[in-house]
């Protein structure tokens, strides 16, 4: 790409213009089509993971009822559910899906800076998903080592999928990281270098900020996963001993010596903890925009919100070992990592306060996206508070590897981002498709999902306090777990099945509305940010017609005192703003 100062360009980027249906919808270089390809694939693979979780719940709620689920299948479900949801669903949907769709539209660009690379990113992602799914069909099945893939158990005969399954998982992760790097470099460069006139960094919607910092985290955190995947692949295929100590398997010593299993945990969590924020930060951004729009109020403390995102991103790299308090590392490390972990609660709490203060005295419109956004505040506060428990070493020790941990991370990084994703899909659906979704079905979907979430995860906290261990196929008879725990397990399973089925309402709503929804207004929510001001709905290739927009203000001019309309779009100049007669212009 030639270097022409952007100041005087309007159509300098050589857009790839599609000539056929295949080029337009399959090998597309348009960021919007790529976003939908990414999002659709992520939702499909997420449904697979959802079904796996329901299989697990059926086994736990009604043990010895289903022949289909033997211990191996259970552990494989645990592993694949976790890995798919965290990496292939949430990361891909939030960054590949929303990142691709929102970034160019929100910053006033025509596309990503390198559309071809962006297209490659999707196809590599699809390849990684296919490799992962292929592991269901190889001998031994997918790996059952848990989504953290801790050695030495990954490679030992007792673990299902210790031969082909784990290899396919590692290859798939490596391909995913290549895909993410190609996409991520594009997102970061686009946000830094391709903003339109007047779109300063401090005028970006928080969605873009969240995606930006999350992508930077991804570019620095995924290398650790890539390295650990390569080293584990060597251990599995070549018989090296990076992570494998001298160990005895079924009475015979294995051919390993001198490796360090803790090294893997350090590398894995150096990726794994930033990964939590790779998922959370885009969700923070999206929910901020949804809340502000539907509360008809500017986001409270915009600058603070931006700095909080940056601070959380920075801190997320120095907290990783709080996942390893019981791993046998030096206990003094625990002190350091507990401190940094609790410090990260400060910017996070700040964001929560600001969301609540954005709602305070707002002109709240209870549309479906707003339901989900407010629901997110609830689940995030609950999941976040249990994080404070687990961040402390002394409280973590007894709670480690119990259902308390399961409840914590499902509330904070499972359900919370998913509620935001629903909010965001409903919120932007009119812009993406040009049609409205069905409001009643969306609200039904919300209530079942939101109440079901609590029916599922609240009891798990109690199970955790009782000491019910996680990742057990069946608990059986113990001295310390009362029989009533099983009753809770049954109710959790029933709630999970209902919530799982309720997601079909969502799928139906989206598919039905694509054809039959009412024609949407170009800006149905009266939103001020740039993506709603496109000349066409849905936006066409190139996004902005002849001329790139000029931005005069931040993305949150709602209910500006004296203005006639209750929002002022970002691309409206000061002199074009209609003021009420009584108010003096421009004051």
């Amino acid at each position, binding site marked *: 790409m*030639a270097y022409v100062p952007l100041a005087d360009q309007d159509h300098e980027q050589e857009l790839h213009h599609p000539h056929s249906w295949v080029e337009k919808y399959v090998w597309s270089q348009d960021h919007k089509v790529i976003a939908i390809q990414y999002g659709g694939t992520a939702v499909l693979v997420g449904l697979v993971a959802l079904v796996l979780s329901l299989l697990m719940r059926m086994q736990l709620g009604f043990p010895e009822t289903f022949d289909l689920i033997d211990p191996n299948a259970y552990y494989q479900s645990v592993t694949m559910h976790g890995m798919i949801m965290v990496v292939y669903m949430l990361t891909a949907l939030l960054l590949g899906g929303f990142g691709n769709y929102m970034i160019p539209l929100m910053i006033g660009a025509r596309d990503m800076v390198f559309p071809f690379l962006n297209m490659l990113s999707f196809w590599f992602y699809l390849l990684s998903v296919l490799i992962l799914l292929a592991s269901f069909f190889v001998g031994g099945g997918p790996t059952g080592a848990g989504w953290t893939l801790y050695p030495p158990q990954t490679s030992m005969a007792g673990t299902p999928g210790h031969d082909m399954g784990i290899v396919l998982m590692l290859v798939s992760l490596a391909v995913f990281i290549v895909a993410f790097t190609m996409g991520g*470099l*594009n997102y970061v460069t686009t946000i830094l270098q391709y903003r339109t006139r007047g*779109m*300063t960094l401090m005028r970006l919607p928080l969605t873009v900020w969240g995606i930006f910092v999350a992508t930077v985290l991804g570019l620095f955190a995924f290398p650790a996963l890539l390295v650990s995947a390569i080293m584990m692949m060597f251990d599995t295929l070549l018989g*090296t001993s990076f992570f494998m100590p001298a160990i005895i398997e079924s009475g015979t010593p294995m051919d390993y010596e001198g490796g360090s299993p803790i090294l893997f945990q350090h590398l894995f969590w150096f990726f794994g903890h930033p990964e939590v924020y790779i998922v959370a930060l885009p969700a923070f951004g999206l929910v901020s925009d949804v809340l502000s729009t539907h509360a008809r109020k500017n986001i409270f403390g915009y600058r603070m919100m931006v700095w909080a995102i940056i601070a959380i991103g920075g801190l997320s790299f120095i907290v990783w070992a709080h996942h390893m308090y019981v791993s046998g590392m030096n206990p003094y490390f625990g002190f350091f990592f507990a401190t940094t972990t609790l410090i990260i609660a400060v910017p996070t709490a700040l964001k929560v306060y600001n969301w609540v203060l954005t709602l305070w005295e707002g002109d709240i419109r209870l549309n479906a996206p707003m339901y989900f956004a407010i629901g997110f505040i609830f689940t995030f506060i609950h999941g976040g508070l249990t994080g404070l428990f687990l961040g402390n070493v002394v409280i973590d020790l007894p709670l480690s590897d119990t259902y308390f941990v399961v409840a914590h991370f499902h509330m904070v990084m499972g359900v919370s981002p998913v509620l935001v994703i629903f909010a965001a899909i409903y919120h932007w659906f009119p812009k993406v498709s040009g049609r409205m979704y069905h409001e009643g079905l969306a609200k039904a979907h919300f209530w079942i999902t939101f109440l079901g979430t609590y029916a599922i995860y609240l009891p798990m906290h109690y199970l955790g306090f009782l000491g019910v261990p996680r990742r057990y196929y069946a608990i059986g008879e113990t001295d310390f777990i009362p029989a009533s725990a099983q009753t809770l397990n049954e109710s959790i399973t029933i709630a999970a099945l209902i919530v799982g089925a309720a997601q079909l309402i969502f799928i139906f709503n989206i598919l039905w509305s694509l054809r039959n929804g009412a024609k949407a207004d170009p800006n149905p929510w009266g939103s001020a940010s740039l993506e709603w001001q496109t000349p066409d709905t849905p936006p066409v290739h190139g996004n902005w017609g002849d001329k790139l927009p000029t931005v005069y203000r931040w993305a949150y001019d709602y209910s500006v005192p004296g203005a006639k309309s209750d929002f002022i779009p970002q691309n409206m100049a000061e002199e074009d703003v209609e003021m009420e007669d009584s108010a003096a212009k421009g004051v």
Partner: protein
Amino acid sequence: MSETAAIQGTPEGVEGLVEDWASDKQTYNVPWGKAMMWIFLVSDTFIFTCFLTGYLNVRLTTTEPWPLQTEIFALTLFGQSIPLVLIAIMTFILITSSGSMALAVNFGYRRDKQKTFWLMVITAVLGASFVGMQAFEWTKLIVDEGIRPWGNPYGAAQFGSVFFMVTGFHGLHVTGGVIYLLIVANKVRKGHYEKKGYEIVEIAGLYWHFVDLVWVFIFAFFYLL
């Protein structure tokens, strides 16, 4: 707020820094490709850092003694065993190639098509000879001295594991760089960049210098430490 600041002049201190960075259109006054290459290189730095951290860690955890590098990496020349001689030559070649690359970038900006092309070809040839000597070194280690990724006669098995993994990963980077340089050089020869400008030569150069810099660390950590 930022508008008033712009009118009254840039504020001082940290706030001024933020205002500078936050200006519209472009944060850095560089082409897109160059910004992207820099970000990629930072990401790649994390990969090599993780590799080297892993290497130091297994060197500590392994129960066997670490093999003596001076013996393993010695080469017999003129009837005498000289330690580290091959690797010294390899390092010299790679660093020289950084010099020729820097000259290529310079002549690119002077729009001297011929010299840019030939200097890039020289850089690529030096890079290819580095990879060739690495292949020779690997052959010697594997065939003559019996060092394998899973074990070797001199001590800790991890020596072979990390050595082949990390130098192999670096070798792949160099190989990729040689191909990249040749593609760009060919386009330079054809006059592709006469209109677009020669930034791409500098971008390729950034990658090349990075690969050389990484080699310095690998050299120090594997051969000297």
